[in-house]
């Protein structure tokens, strides 16, 4: 049993519920920052006692990007877009949270049918990864503001990252750096995109972007 690892995973799971239950965009961005920080700590917790330099550098980089730079960029976007709340979500917050609970249940059931957990560092890693992914996908579908969709995308990526930690012993450093760079550019580009949409339409309600059809 690795208590630190399990603690981190439980915090990650809780952050998903808070993401599902909040309407305030700033709070949601802060929640992804917390999530990003936990993600940064995960590889260190998995390593345990001896921490290699390579792992430490990556962990620091992930924590700085996901808990510092991304939230900062997104906060700026929230402010410039002039929208503070998710006004009319497609699925209400109470129901979202309930669905989140169902997703966790489904994640544990799915994990019990798959062979991944046998070799993972903790029995919680894979189910938590599935839950985080499900939360991300759900946010992208059930929320109308473009910011929430970006947060959903980041959450999905976080889930995939946790899954990767559980089942792959090591991704080459160069690939990890490339993935992080892509993530950085993605948040940057999406931020600018939201800014432009909010200027053009006076709103960032992506559900209203429906003039192109057929």
């Amino acid at each position, binding site marked *: 049993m690795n208590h630190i690892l399990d603690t981190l995973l439980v915090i990650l799971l809780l952050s998903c519920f808070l993401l599902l239950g909040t309407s305030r965009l700033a709070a949601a961005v802060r929640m992804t920052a917390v999530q990003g920080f936990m993600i940064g700590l995960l590889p260190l917790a998995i390593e345990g006692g001896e921490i290699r330099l390579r792992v430490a550098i990556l962990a620091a980089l992930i924590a700085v990007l996901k808990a510092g730079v991304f939230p900062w960029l997104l906060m700026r976007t929230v402010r410039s877009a002039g929208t503070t709340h998710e006004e009319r979500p497609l699925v209400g917050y109470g129901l979202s949270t309930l669905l989140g609970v169902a997703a966790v249940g489904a994640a544990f059931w799915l994990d019990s049918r798959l062979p991944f957990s046998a070799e993972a560092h903790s029995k919680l890693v894979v189910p938590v990864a599935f839950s985080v992914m499900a939360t991300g996908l759900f946010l992208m579908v059930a929320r109308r503001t473009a910011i929430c969709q970006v947060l959903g995308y980041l959450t999905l990526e976080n889930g995939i990252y946790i899954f990767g930690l559980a089942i792959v012993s090591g991704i*080459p450093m*160069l690939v990890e750096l490339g993935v992080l760079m892509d993530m950085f550019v993605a948040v940057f580009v999406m931020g600018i995109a939201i800014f432009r949409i909010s200027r053009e339409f006076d709103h960032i309600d992506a559900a209203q972007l429906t003039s192109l059809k057929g």
Partner: protein
Amino acid sequence: MVPSFYLYFALALPALLALATLLRLSPAAQLRLLAFGTAGVALGALPAVIRVWAGCDEIVAAQGWLRLDALGALHVLLLLAVFVPAAVYARRYFGVEIAAGEFSAGAARRFAALWFGALAMMLLVLLANNLGIMWVGVEATTLLTAFLICTHRTAGSLEAMWKYLLMCSVGVAVAFMGILLIAAATRHTGMPATSALLWTNLMATQGKLDPALVKAGFLFLVVGFGTKAGLAPMHNWLPDAHSQAPSPVSAVFSGCLLNSALYCILRCLPLAEGVSGNTGWARGVLVALGLLSMLVAAGLLLAQRDLKRLLAYSSVEHIGVMALGVGLGGLGAFAAMLHMLGHALAKPLGFFCAGTIGQAYGTHDLRRIGGVVRQAPPWGIGLVLSLLALIGMAPGVLFLSELLVLKAAVEQQAWWTVGLYLAALAVAFIAVLRRAIALGWDSSAPPPERPSAAAAGADAWLLTILPLVLLSVLGLLLPMGLAELLLRAAMIVGGAL
């Protein structure tokens, strides 16, 4: 010169040009840089392609992380065959807007920088030997091309950009799951993590990979990269992005972006087939998705009223033909490679002509454009003939390749496939032919608002006639050298004659 140098050079040149566009240049100078720079990139990348074409099996660089084989060389060749004319055409397309004062220096700089950036990343996808680096390249092309869609900042283009950005980012994230699963499948090969994800190593150690994980990974990769390739039912972003983007960008999207995503699936195919014991399981997935794409696209082609959306749905159909051909394997894989060649010639031509005619008429609405053969000679003729080539009129490369796909399906006695394939082709044929005739010769439509935009010039004739000549000549008489390259590429994905 050391061959590996060619690969570094091919990648570094567009990246340097992207930096060069940041200089303060006038829009016209920026467009000149775009045209000559893209031609320069083509010249820089050609030595590597020619070397492989001439018989060299592969060029390897960066300790095996970069690699060019016949499949890659064919894709790089087609990439250049689309990018160079598109850059030349961009000068003309945006020239009209510069004259109208609609294209600022800032917009030109942004466009050129993103153009070269996207070119560099697409080359990276084709040259990467590492599954992870390939993924990084695909995601980077999504991000870099997003703002090319909304070069003109209209409500429609912003909507299309947002849809493209989100759908493709999520799709590519799903593909990353597939990569993780394949990485997990290498546990028992005893390879260090740094080299386990190299294609060459994956292929060499097929026997030791975990089949269930590779199969699951392949499905994720097909869904993920299939989103980017525009395979139905993940194609929703495609018609919006293609119709809202400026025409040079639409040409690049249709001719290169879709192919480079399909290329990633093609790479995974022999791996998934080999690991699952050559039972045809992975091929079946591609056949099903290919047929579905063709049928969906054919149905939607019937309902189109917008010229560029018509061309966009035709891209979904053609990607479907390619996936189907590769899925059938054998002769079908060769036909798919030939189809890729024909599509890379015909579709950009269609978008160039549609763009210029759209500028002249001030709309892409099919009901308000007509009689273009007489109204706008080279562009109108080019548009009608490219539409005919795209629906597989003889003589044309696409006629030949579609015939060969049919032959492959008949040889395998896959009668359901034959039936659905022919039905989709017939519906698409009727849908597009109807429009093409009205576009070309319907004299009841109003004349163009701005006929000067579609003026004929040396560049106009060159851009329209050259692809048409190539399409019909190659359809009649495929040179041995080219056929050999196509065959070698096809053999990598399990093809044979």
